């Protein structure tokens, strides 16, 4: 490999700065589609606080893989169970993270996944019960290194 000239080194450095700055600027201006995701899931109804315990690290050093686990209080019987839980990240390029579908056979409304977070932001969980009631919970995660690439 040829040694990199001073000029090339500057060009590379400049390119890197541009690459890292542009997505950030875009994020700041355009909020993502979190509101649409929430509206679609809730059908415009208000979600009450509670029932969900959402476990996320306060500070995620690597946004590429952030462990998330959640539990929703529910007897999980055929009469009363958690139907769906939607996870939303309000600072990612796309707000949707995952939709978890439970059934009475799940036994417990408990799940864990690993998610990508582009920047420091809120992660929102919305749960829909079998009777149609809605619950919500949110956590802020500080992200040191973004997980969506540039």
């Amino acid at each position, binding site marked *: 490999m040829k040694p990199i000239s001073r000029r090339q080194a500057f060009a590379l450095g400049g390119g890197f700065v541009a690459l890292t700055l542009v997505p950030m600027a875009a994020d700041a201006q355009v909020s993502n589609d979190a509101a649409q995701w929430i509206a679609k899931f809730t059908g415009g109804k208000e979600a009450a606080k509670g029932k969900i315990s959402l476990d996320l690290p306060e500070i995620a050093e690597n946004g*590429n*893989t*952030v462990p998330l*686990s959640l539990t929703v209080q529910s007897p*999980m019987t055929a009469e009363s169970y958690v139907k769906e839980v939607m996870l939303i*990240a309000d600072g*990612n*390029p*796309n707000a*949707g*993270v*995952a*939709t*978890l*579908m*439970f*059934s*009475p*056979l*799940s*036994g*417990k409304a*408990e*799940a*864990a*996944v*690993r*998610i*990508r*977070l582009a920047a420091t932001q809120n992660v929102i969980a919305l749960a829909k019960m079998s009777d149609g009631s809605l619950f919500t919970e949110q956590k802020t995660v500080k992200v040191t290194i973004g*997980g*969506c*690439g*540039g």
Partner: protein
Amino acid sequence: MADKPRIKLPKEATKGEIIQIKTLVSHVMESGQRKDAQGKPIPRKIINKFSCEFNGKPVFACALEPAISANPYIQFTARVDEDGTFKFAWTDDDGTVITAEEKIAIKA
């Protein structure tokens, strides 16, 4: 890609016991947000759906978005009332489905 999914669950359970199931499948989960060295966007390729059935009945499923990390790890629970087989399926954007099966028995 061709790697066998890793699934961890007990071989036996007492009737009505709620067991924990851990699954991990090797997959790039390309978000569609990244660009290659030439600045062209790398097309999205993710596993968009995971499902688990027990003796044909749905236990747990999830719809995944690009915000799920590479090599998706999914952990959930299941209530076991009878002997049977858990069937797992991961559906890729391109339509391929990775499947796996695990048996469980009720402790005598």
